């Protein structure tokens, strides 16, 4: 997901306000941000890979090589492909912690501050990444009852499931332990509720029988936004808020941090959904999800029946989806432009939230992130 941003290779001059004229390239945004927070955050959550339990798992996962269990892809992603593995959530939390500055509450606030960030906030950034990673792993579980013979031996899949459940649980347990060590029950409550949100969001993602029936869900854009909030925004939004709570910032700042996290990640999801539709390349049409924002919006404008008809036409006789045709159909409608508008709208709201923070390098970095996720060729 974040990797797509790198590939889109954006350029331009920066600025808190100007979204359309663009900002620095994504990779530059990231490396500058990392300098601001003090260190590269790429492998934050994977420090616990050094634990006995996970090295045990890693050895066992080797047995999955040659099978089709999704855990293998997830694991591969961690080790080999650091590009696609940017731990953006952690970075955002660190940036917003720094942007909010030191606690204005009691003078006796004695916590450790390094590079303008409290150690508890750093811990929280790591916790967020742990949770995110845990669910990447838990997403990669297969339904044993739905396996076909082409998926390979049953016991390989069962074994993969076992490893996925265990390693996901291990990451979650680590997150819970670290949360407890923060000694702040409000934060525990916030993050735990974020986990609940994430579960519900993933549940909605999974529930789609749309993959089998090749249909868009029968929902409108506002329902879509609710579900995407759960699966893509809640964790970051609530973590940003929790970071503020850790430094005892006011409820107003907490709310603004929440708003930034929420709107920035919504923009990001919309940006990601739009990629197949805004690229110039004509040779290779990317397949896209029928539940991506442009499709949902297109369906809403056109009406469900008309949209289903277009889908069936694109499927043709062989039941193989002609994504190019479908893409053209969507582009011909208002789906793409309204998705872009929606993306920019959320981006604006994220920037508006940032206005409540004092000017700083960290705040600029956060703004640059928004610019990067709202930029279209």
């Amino acid at each position, binding site marked *: 997901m974040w990797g797509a941003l790198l590939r889109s290779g954006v350029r331009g001059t920066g600025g808190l306000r100007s979204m359309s004229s663009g900002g620095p390239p994504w990779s530059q945004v990231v490396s500058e941000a990392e300098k601001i927070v003090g260190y590269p955050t790429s492998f934050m959550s994977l420090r616990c890979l050094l634990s006995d339990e996970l090295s045990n798992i890693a050895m066992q996962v080797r047995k999955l090589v040659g099978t089709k269990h999704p855990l293998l892809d997830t694991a591969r992603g961690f080790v080999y492909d650091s590009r696609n593995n940017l731990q953006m959530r952690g970075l955002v939390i660190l940036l917003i912690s720094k942007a909010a500055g030191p606690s204005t509450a009691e003078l006796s606030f004695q916590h450790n501050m390094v590079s303008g960030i409290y150690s508890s906030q750093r811990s929280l950034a790591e916790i967020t990444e742990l949770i995110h990673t845990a669910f990447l792993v838990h997403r990669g579980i297969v*339904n044993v009852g739905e396996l076909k013979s082409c998926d390979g031996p049953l016991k390989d899949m069962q074994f993969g499931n076992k490893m996925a459940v265990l390693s996901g649980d291990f990451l979650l347990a680590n997150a819970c332990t670290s949360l407890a060590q923060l000694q702040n029950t409000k934060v525990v409550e916030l993050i735990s509720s974020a986990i609940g949100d994430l579960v519900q969001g993933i*549940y909605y993602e999974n529930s789609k029988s749309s993959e089998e029936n090749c249909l868009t869900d029968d929902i409108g854009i506002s329902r879509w936004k609710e579900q995407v909030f759960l699966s893509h925004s809640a964790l970051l939004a609530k973590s940003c808020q929790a970071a503020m709570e850790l430094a005892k910032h006011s409820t107003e700042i907490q709310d603004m941090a929440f708003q930034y996290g929420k709107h920035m990640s919504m923009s990001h999801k919309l940006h990601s959904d739009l990629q197949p539709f805004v690229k110039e390349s004509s040779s290779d049409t990317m397949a896209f999800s029928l539940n991506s924002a442009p499709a949902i919006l297109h369906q809403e404008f056109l009406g469900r029946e008309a949209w289903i008809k277009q889908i069936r036409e694109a499927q043709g006789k062989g039941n193989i989806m002609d994504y190019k045709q479908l893409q053209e159909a969507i582009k011909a409608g208002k789906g793409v432009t309204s998705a872009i508008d929606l993306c920019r709208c959320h981006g604006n709201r994220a920037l508006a939230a940032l206005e409540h923070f004092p000017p700083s390098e960290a705040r600029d970095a956060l703004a640059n992130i928004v610019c990067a996720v709202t930029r279209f060729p």
Partner: protein
Amino acid sequence: MALRWWWWWRRCGASSRRAPPLGSVPRPGPRAPPAPSAMCHFTQRSSALSFPKICNVFWRFHHTSTSHLCSCSKTVSDENYQDPFQLGRKDLKNLYEDIKKELLVSAAELKEMCDYYFDGKGKAFRPMIVVLMARACNIHHNNSKEVQASQRSVAIIAEMIHTASLVHDDVIDDANSRRGKRTLNQIWGERKAVLAGDFILSAASVALARIGNTTIVSVLTQVIEDLVRGEFLQLGSKENENERFAHYLEKTFKKTASLIANSCKAVSILGCPDPKVHEIAYQYGKNVGIAFQLIDDVLDFTSCADRLGKPTAADLKLGLATGPVLFACRQFPEMNAMIMRRFSRPGDVERAWKYVLQSDGVQQTTYLAQRYCHAATREIRKLRPSPEREALVHLTEMVLMRDK
């Protein structure tokens, strides 16, 4: 304690049929010690000392060597005896309803999945212990007869954490039935089952945070970590026989006893400021928890033998070497190879099963469970007398006498 006993038992020589005391220890109190039919089954191997004689010898040995606190056990237990489940009933009346209220899910199917095991049909053994412990500690501290709301929350949270771990365990073990009905993964598939487990855990965390006490959060979060580490311990295995037993006990603590021990500790912290009381509560929970699991492991062999006439041997089939197996292995070293390969070859499960039945593995494990129960009783008797305290003692006896 169990490790010392393990070494003692080894030194006595597993091949000697006389030395290890066989069978169950008669309990204090007016009820006659029943000889569980499963026990008698195994004394059919000839022994110089007959079963009742050994019991007597052991009982006298054990009874005089335990701490002075036990000597007054008989009469107190009789006078204050009440069914533990009656005592705790009021506090637990709406337990499952309250748990369901914590599970705020908008998707109907996910809600159905999360509510699935909170149908009120379970015995609520863990919440019962928690609530009784809460009362016993409250009475000990200031004679208060009420259970605080936060203590009741701990009972709810403990049950939720336990259930969440069961849901994941069923996916890991590919189980298809639990508590007489189909498992979540059997009905809704593994993906959703794992999510349901995650949700229940997150809801438990939210409830935990709402108590507003960071110490309690730390104590109960430890359980979550222990549960996962326990599962990992189960994955691995030890080469060395002696390490195996320690490994088995550690796994038993983490997977079963930690939850009970830490929830007892949590309610004691909420009810009483004295750290000695917290330690008593913790030790009671830990000992009862280990005993509970040991008996569970025994039942995996005995309940089937009695009822169905053929083994289900669920643990063996999962490749797990539990107490009875580890003890049997001392008498039948041929089992070592099977343990190492986790009973994976065809015929392994059946052979191991037979070895266990021929050995006194079941008795040894039961005896060990008794020792843990006695330790639990010794601990809890350090608290001020109360019906709840005695109920907790009675609970340890119930643990031993379970037949399913």
